[in-house]
């Protein structure tokens, strides 16, 4: 077993320091070391998107990022989306639009949507579907997810 390293990150706006083995993924560190279980594991090979977090503003599957790679990075997870006790537009739209059933893929979809809307505040349906195609949902058939993203985009535009 290789020696553990100290990794310093900014996690949901706060500085966070953790020890990790070189073989541990960011997903494992978030869930098992830091106890932040909002980020979900579905496949551990980057296929399902459930573990999506933002790393320096970019959506990444945290199962394909090593914990040590997060050194110096700014990480945002589902736990950091709601602000001051208020849901953000995307969370609210998923909730009101019944865009989840079992909910296991929801944190990943919300993070992926945050990345999309930061980059493209007025996405077309086709752009939404293309952007979210790396996130699998087996319950909803995607209809209500796509509509929730549309609703969130509209709300975000009207409030900014």
């Amino acid at each position, binding site marked *: *077993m290789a020696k553990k390293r100290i990794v310093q990150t900014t996690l949901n706006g706060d500085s966070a320091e953790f020890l990790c*083995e070189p*073989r541990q993924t960011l997903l*494992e560190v978030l*869930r*098992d070391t830091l*106890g*932040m*279980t*909002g*980020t*979900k*594991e*579905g*496949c*551990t*090979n980057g*296929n*399902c998107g*459930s573990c999506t977090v933002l790393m320096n503003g970019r959506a990444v599957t945290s199962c394909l990022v090593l914990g040590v790679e997060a050194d110096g990075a700014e990480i945002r*997870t*589902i*736990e950091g*989306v*709601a602000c001051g006790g208020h*849901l953000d537009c995307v*969370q609210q739209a*998923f*909730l*009101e*639009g*019944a865009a*989840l*059933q*079992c*909910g*296991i*893929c*929801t*944190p990943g979809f*919300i993070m992926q949507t945050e990345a999309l809307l930061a980059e493209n505040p007025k996405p077309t349906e086709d752009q*939404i*579907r*293309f952007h*979210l*195609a*790396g*996130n*699998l*949902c*087996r*319950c*909803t*058939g*995607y*209809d*209500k*997810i*796509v*509509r929730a993203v549309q609703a969130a985009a509209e709300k975000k535009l009207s409030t900014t």
Partner: protein
Amino acid sequence: MSIGEKRKYKVIGTRPIRHDGVDKVTGRAQYGADVHPTGLLFGAMLRSPHAHAKIKRIDTSRAAALPGVRAVATSADLPDQGSRMVELGEGAVNMRHLSANVLARDKVLYKGHAIAAIAADTIHIAEEAVKLIDVQYELLPPVLDVRAAMKADAPVLNDDVRTDGLPPGDPAADRPTNVAKRILFEKGDVVTGFKSAAVVLEHEFVAGTVHQGYIEPHNATVMWNPDGKITVWMSTQGSFTARQQTAELLRVPVSDVKVVPMEIGGGFGGKISVYLPPVAAVLSRKSGRPVKLIMDRASVFEATGPTPGSYIKLKLGFSKDGRLVAGDAYLAYEAGAYPGSPMGPGCMCVFACYDIPNARVEGYDVCVNKPRTNAYRAPGSTHVAFAIETLIDEFCRQAKIDPAEFRLKNGAKEGVRRVDGPVFDRVGMIETVEAIRDSEHYQTPLKGPNQGRGIATGFWFNCGLKSSVTATVNGDGTVALVEGSTDIGGSRTGIAMQLAETLGITAEEVKPTVGDTDTAGYCDVTGGSRVTFATGIAAHEAAKDIIGQLVVRAAKHWEVDPKTVEYLDGGVTGPTALRMTFRELAATLHDTGGAVIGRGTSSEANQGGAFGTHCVDVEVDPDTGKVQILRYTAAQDCGTAIHPSYVEGQIQGGVVQGIGWALNEEYWYGDDGRMRNPTFLDYRMPTCYDVPMIDTIIVEVPDPQHPYGVRGVGEVPICPPPAAIANAIAAATGVRMRQTPMSPPRVLAEILKS
């Protein structure tokens, strides 16, 4: 859109925000893998690299010696089951087979079959230790195809399997075989029926093996306490059946096992069987620590689920005036390693959508070297819908009959007897066909080249089974509802809404909780499209129980005769215009006798069955064979939609699973019996870029057996898509697809042949 009566309810039919919603959009909801009791160990499993082999020897000594390893388990640690059968809620199960599926005994029967398990300080140590387990195998030839496995000279998987249901005196009845069961249903006179037919069509249909594909892998965390009490935290569709399976596999009393159902990340039938809890329990007993086991994705594909591949031969006879007069079906379903495919429901569903006077169905349940099959959304029905709905479409095209009109003419309705015996009560098959026929979608002509439209109908029984709830009135006028039905997609709110409707309060004033097996009353599995129906009845009964008690309490408070008190519109009324709202009355309960707790059960009610009719437009690329879904509309009879958003969601989700089954999803095996595509990249489920919006038409033909007319919704929507899509492909290309999935190479091959 909703067809049917005008809204007559206050809560039912509205769209409140689900009670567990905020937890699920903030990442706070606790799923099975999120459990972390103090002292937790992590487990990993050794799985067979071979599809069929004898286990000659297992040596775990090197693994046990690795620093950080705390316990090792093999089948030697599980008690012997003899040959007993145990009733596990959805039918009797052979415990020897169930146990050997959890940890292989003398043989491995599929690639991925669990053999041994390790508990260690970290998952990495456990995985390293698994590689140090030495197993000696004697390889046996695998058999993967259902028809090959039925041959007399096929390698036999289980020495103890004999064909159940053979005619008396059949010499094959005493031989070890892969054919575990034969079923025969007959109605009318098939020979005469076919003689009277003007047109007879017959074809063979093949379906590939597909997986439920839930995103959350199987998981279990178990603590076996020194006092003998076992706590299981897991994601399951049925905490009570998980408790019973675990107890029976460990041969301990059920009351020694407590199953705590965590939030569940999808199941679709695949999270009813127990795989991990008994293994984690053994590891916990040996280590004295809680142990968590989580499957990796490859193991989920290779060792859980799937729904069977099948071979179906179907013959239909039609009269000159377009009536279905005779049908003969032969079904062979893969059971996987141990008996138990959904061949039975397949036999019951094949003709269920039609009023067919003469019919015969023969079905076979056949073991092959694949994982033991499990329920998947209307188990067994999608296979037969693909066969009958495409064959009927073929007739309609030949005879130039509109496929919707054919279904209106021949469709099942009240009073029609199914081939397996039961007679339909009030059902909404015809109404769903009418809804599609009259839809803007069906009425709008297609525009482009290589486009085609298809329709198809599907049926599922929906079951009743047993449910119970308790509901306690809080002093602030809310109600705490405890139910044992695990909530897989918003059912907490659907149940709470029915309680609220009966009490005349709001959905938000009910606080639903899914309890563990020590907290909640017995509930059967979350499956069979039963929870909103049966647990809903239990909630309605609990509300009535509360009302009865509140009337007495109000009378006591007012010091009047209870006979003069009535419960109306969310409150009580008494003589001389006395009136208290539910909330006002709730605040007085401590003065009149303490808590009011309502109890409700449902055990007698059986659902009347549900139908859906779908319409799909596709475009087929003639150069590649790729099928693109352009437009999709699904009409379904849901009796009464309690929460329309989640009814639509069930339909949309089922449709997209059906689209995946139709176009891409399939287990690919090599001749060695190893699955070649056990990842989400290669087992290609639909992404949101593959599908359009899914339009839904909610048809409401109330089920007379439910106080609010509910019919289960979840399962029917997966049945019609493969057939509807095949019919649309035929309309677009003239090519008839009779094998799923209708992947680009297969479609292209057929186009090139034609």
